[in-house]
């Protein structure tokens, strides 16, 4: 089997045992990128020279007898919202074109410390705002299952890179579903850890109370290995949880749901859901039952208001966070001809540097926070957030995990929702409650929809700091489905 088809765990073991060098593994992925990325557009920046240098250094350390971690020498695609020294960081925006950050994000630093080889930076919706990568200032990424369709978003470059075998692993950030939704529509695994379980330091901020870095991989164990490699307490992030990383790798190896209580969220389904998505979801629920899980229906009535609450809270936080792009200290500056004031230059720069979705959200947030509207919009949304957290608490007294489809539909065609913000926002219907409540959730493949032959994701939600339950259930579902399918779902994707 070619190196690019192997799992991250296999590649790490091959490199550690010196059966294959990290340089060979890296070169195989660079070749794949050269072959397919012209059509996929997963990467905004590929640094072959730096990747090969990183790989050589891993090979040298292993040759010298050093024992490195399980992912040493494994290539990774890194979402272009994490700061990286030595590589540009754009957040998919023209306002940061060509910017080279003076420091590494904590996640970046931990990838380097784990010996992962960073191949380059992946495309995303501008400032991680979107569900399709169409909001990138650098052109959309294409879904490897069908190049005319979206790969999800905002971390669509990362989901496409992994599903196109350009990298075995990638990073993402999930503010309203930006890891789970792209994973679902590209047929791979994506995990949103508990909020505060992975560091936001050096992640270009969108909505600070929601932003959560997490892993993408082609299987549950690889996702767990990456989760463990970059998570854990970080004193540089004031909302980082000072607690051990949940035992995610052990859980991924313990694919057993016998006796677990699984709740099906009643509110997710019906109108707006594609029949083929619901059919695959119902099969996954039946599968869990056949594996010994006790399935019950659970009602979370406030979840119906999660989407409107999110589209008040997230834009409010973004309008504040993006005030830092002021054309003074870094990034784009437009119109500074010696006659204009700083404020005029600022307004011209922001108008030229931000795309339409970012402008919409900044203005929506500014509106929601305005005097006279604050209580009715932002204040009320925060109260709804409390009620959503209470719905989760009540549900998790009855069950160990909750399940739902990850997305209401499969990947939609590029362009279909591009100028219809409300239609685009619906892609995150099932993923948003978890962000508002801060708990953990994973998306794992559960089959192809009959209508279009495109991947469907099963979402598994667990309580705060019970991330391991997502991996345990995810691994059990993966194992059972793969034995039914005769291999991973992704092996059924058309060749690129």
């Amino acid at each position: 089997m070619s190196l690019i088809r192997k799992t991250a765990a296999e590649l790490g073991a091959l490199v550690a045992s010196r059966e294959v060098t990290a340089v060979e593994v890296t070169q195989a992925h660079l070749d794949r990128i050269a072959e397919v990325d012209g059509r996929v557009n997963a990467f905004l920046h590929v640094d072959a020279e730096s990747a090969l240098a990183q790989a050589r250094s891993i090979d040298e350390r292993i040759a010298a007898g050093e024992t490195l971690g399980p992912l040493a020498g494994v290539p990774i695609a890194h979402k272009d919202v994490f700061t990286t020294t030595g590589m540009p960081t754009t957040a998919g925006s023209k306002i940061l074109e060509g910017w080279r950050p003076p420091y590494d994000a904590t996640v970046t630093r931990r990838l380097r410390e784990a010996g992962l080889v960073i191949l380059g930076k992946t495309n995303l919706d501008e400032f991680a705002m979107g569900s399709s990568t169409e909001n990138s200032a650098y052109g959309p990424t294409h879904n490897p299952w069908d190049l005319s369709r979206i790969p999800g978003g905002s971390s669509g470059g990362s989901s496409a890179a992994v599903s196109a075998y350009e990298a075995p692993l990638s990073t993402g950030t999930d503010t309203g579903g930006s890891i789970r939704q792209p994973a679902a529509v590209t047929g791979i695994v994506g995990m949103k850890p508990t909020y505060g379980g992975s560091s936001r330091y050096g992640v270009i901020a969108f909505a600070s109370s929601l932003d959560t870095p997490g892993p993408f991989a082609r299987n549950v164990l690889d996702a767990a290995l990456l989760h463990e490699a970059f998570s854990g307490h970080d004193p540089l992030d004031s909302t980082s949880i000072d607690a051990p990383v949940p035992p995610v790798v052990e859980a991924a190896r313990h694919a057993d749901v016998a006796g677990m209580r699984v709740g099906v969220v009643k509110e997710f389904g019906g109108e707006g859901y594609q029949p083929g998505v619901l059919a695959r979801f119902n099969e996954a629920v039946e599968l869990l039952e056949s594996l010994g899980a006790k399935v019950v229906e659970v009602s979370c009535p406030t979840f119906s208001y999660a989407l409107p609450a999110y589209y008040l809270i997230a834009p409010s936080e973004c309008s504040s966070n993006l005030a830092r792009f002021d054309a003074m200290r870094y990034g784009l500056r437009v119109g500074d001809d010696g006659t204009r004031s700083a404020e005029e230059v600022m307004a011209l720069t922001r108008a030229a540097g931000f795309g339409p979705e970012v402008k919409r959200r900044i203005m929506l947030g500014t509106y929601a926070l305005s005097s006279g509207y604050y209580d009715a919009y932002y204040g009320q949304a925060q109260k709804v957030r409390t009620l959503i957290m209470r719905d989760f608490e009540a549900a998790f007294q009855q069950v160990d995990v909750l399940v739902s489809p990850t997305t209401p539909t499969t990947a939609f065609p590029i362009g279909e929702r591009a100028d219809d913000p409300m239609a685009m926002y619906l892609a995150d219907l099932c993923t948003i409650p978890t962000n508002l409540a801060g708990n953990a959730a994973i998306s794992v493949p559960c089959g192809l929809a009959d209508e279009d032959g495109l991947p469907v994701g099963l979402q598994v939600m667990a309580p705060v700091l019970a991330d391991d339950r997502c991996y345990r259930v995810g691994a059990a579902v993966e194992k059972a489905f793969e034995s039914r399918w005769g291999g991973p779902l992704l092996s059924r994707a058309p060749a690129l």
Partner: protein
Amino acid sequence: MSAITRDEVAHLARLSRLALADDELDHFAAQLDQIVGAVARVAEVAADDIPPSSHALPLTNVFRPDVVRPGLTPEGALSGAPAVEDDRFRVPRILGEEE
């Protein structure tokens, strides 16, 4: 709840420091009106006695010992600046002619 008018968008754009073109004002007015109409649904939830949550986790202030740690060098801090002069960020004029 008031609908979002073109004038309102112009006001929001000014507050947001976005120099929008005229055609953008019309486009955004229609879209923001639709979005605000949809998110206003939060008002349907009876939540008078419910405390607001700014955050998912119970958080208190985080403190650390006040010790000197390495930070960015002046070169690092200025490395992405649009304009630099004498180890400082060079910015357009901040005060108006009359001030």
